[in-house]
């Protein structure tokens, strides 16, 4: 469910960054409140643990396929939601940088889609209320499955929403959603079951690991709902602002600043070069009718070819230069 940079417009990416940052800052504050320095390395190792555990394939009975664990809920159950959120940020950042899973611009979206819903929504609205009055196997299964399914549904929905608002894919929103949700229903159930299996094992062997945090997070549904409400309004506002304007967010924002609808910085350059163009044109005048875009596009294609050629040439020159330098070094 990792979003790629390519599917986003800058404005959507930026808005999601802002939303995730606000949540992160709040989480940092909460984690610091009952700060025991011992927790920091535990968080680090747990992050790495989820990272590693997500790479193990679990065969799903009756099918040939395999599933993974749902990191957010598991971490939230073990570390508490705030520390879990920070752990997830670290995981997602490392996945994006080291494994190119997700993108740098899309990181805000990915944090939101995969960490926020699981750590806060899944945890506070589902996991916690179910677990509150004592644990049992059945409750753990219910809480984990519901938590995973719902947070994944929200995540999948957000992916569709963010992509559509970015306006880069031509896929209609309805089709996208219709494709994403059922797939993630299945995935969520499986992840929930695997997560439940792990939590039950912990519950039955070292329950203190789960209880430790239960006492330390004073649960208040109201407070959470208020926070969630504020965040949703913030994000919703930002997104709808973007959506209502040109999907090309950068142009839109610059347009806002300069008060122009369109940027025509290249016009004067065009004029200056028109002369040169007259003299250097070596290709016959193709007729594309009156379609301006097409004309631009064709010369664009030619230009691209030239740029590409230049790049290759540059690369070759650099390569030769480097080899020479290496040889020089070896000589000395």
């Amino acid at each position, binding site marked *: 469910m990792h979003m*790629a940079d390519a599917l986003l417009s800058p404005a959507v990416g930026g808005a999601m960054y802002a939303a995730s940052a606000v949540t992160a800052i709040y989480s940092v504050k909460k984690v610091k409140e009952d700060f025991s320095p011992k927790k920091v390395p535990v968080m680090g190792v747990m992050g790495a643990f989820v990272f590693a555990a997500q790479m193990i394939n679990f065969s799903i009975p009756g099918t040939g396929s395999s599933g993974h664990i749902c990191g957010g809920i598991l971490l939230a159950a073990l570390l508490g939601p705030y520390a879990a959120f920070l752990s997830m940020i670290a995981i997602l950042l490392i996945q*994006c940088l080291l*494994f190119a899973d997700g993108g740098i611009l899309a990181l805000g979206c990915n944090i939101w889609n995969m960490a926020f819903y699981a750590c806060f929504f899944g945890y506070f609205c589902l996991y916690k209320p179910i677990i509150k009055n004592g644990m049992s196997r059945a409750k753990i299964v219910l809480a984990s499955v519901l938590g995973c399914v719902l947070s994944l549904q929200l995540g999948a929905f957000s992916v569709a929403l963010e992509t559509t608002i970015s306006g880069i894919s031509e896929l209609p929103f309805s089709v996208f959603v219709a494709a994403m949700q059922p797939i993630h229903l299945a995935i969520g159930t499986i992840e929930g*079951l695997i997560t439940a299996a792990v939590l039950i094992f912990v519950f039955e062997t070292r329950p203190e690991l789960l209880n430790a945090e239960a006492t330390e997070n004073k649960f208040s549904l109201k407070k959470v709902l208020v926070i969630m409400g504020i965040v949703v309004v913030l994000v919703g506002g930002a997104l709808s602002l973007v959506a209502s304007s040109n999907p090309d967010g950068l142009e839109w924002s610059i347009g806002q600043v300069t008060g122009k609808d369109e940027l025509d910085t290249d016009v004067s350059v065009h004029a200056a070069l028109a002369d040169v163009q007259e003299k250097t044109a*070596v290709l016959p005048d193709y007729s*594309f009718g009156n379609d301006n875009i097409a004309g631009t*596009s064709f010369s664009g294609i030619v230009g691209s070819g030239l740029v590409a050629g230049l790049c290759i040439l540059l690369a070759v020159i650099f390569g030769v230069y480097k080899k020479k330098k290496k040889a020089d070094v070896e000589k000395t």
Partner: protein
Amino acid sequence: MGKLSDAIYEVHYMDTIAGIDSPIHRVHPLVKLIVTVAYIWFTVSFNKYDVTGLITMVVYPVALFSLSGISFGHSIKKLRVILPFVILMGILNPFFNREPLFLLYGITITEGMVSGLTLLIKGILTVLGGYLLISTTRIEAICYALNLLRVPEILVTQILLTYRYITVLLSEANHIFEAYSLRAPSQKGIHYKVWGSLIGQLLFRSIDRATGLYDAMVLRGYNGNFRHSQLPKARWQDSAYLLVWMAAFAVLRYTSLTALIGSLFVR
């Protein structure tokens, strides 16, 4: 399992290439971070029908691969992670948008085809942009840059520690999976009956590791903050690097360079 050992190899490999020396490796991490973000930002901001403008952004990866000496081949492997999804979306575009854009040698080029192509190119360029950051900058340096950007200390420490322990836990997970597969030779994944205990054992071991690590740090005077080491100092070259690229991106983005060059030859 292949996946786990691949991941271990990958971390080691990235660590190695980020540690070599080149003009790009020497650039201040904060500058590289800013340039990378700007590159990705400008790249995705191209209009979805503007293939030709987008193409010019290839200048950046080409220049960086050349200057840093990072091999291009390995980066292709990275593309395979996120690209399938992007390609899927891109391939669907021609079906959902059949507005004709122009005719090329008698073939009608639709908006969907063009936007699919830009999507693909954006996918490749953005992944390369990220790859060029991490393959020329160590994680510690990136964390230092985050520090300068006033990202909270606790989060930065968290990233560093997670990174530090990824190889350790990957190899423990790998180990436990190997032990499993030796005794269940014909299974592909972990049987559902063992889900809980297998991961649970890994979890306990992780916690024990965490405790051990924490003890070791405390015994050597750790008091909550990592002290960054060998902090790079900003030099004038760093400002130049920043300025040059920002200017270049702006030019590539806001002048139809390809169209200009092309129009020198086409009338």
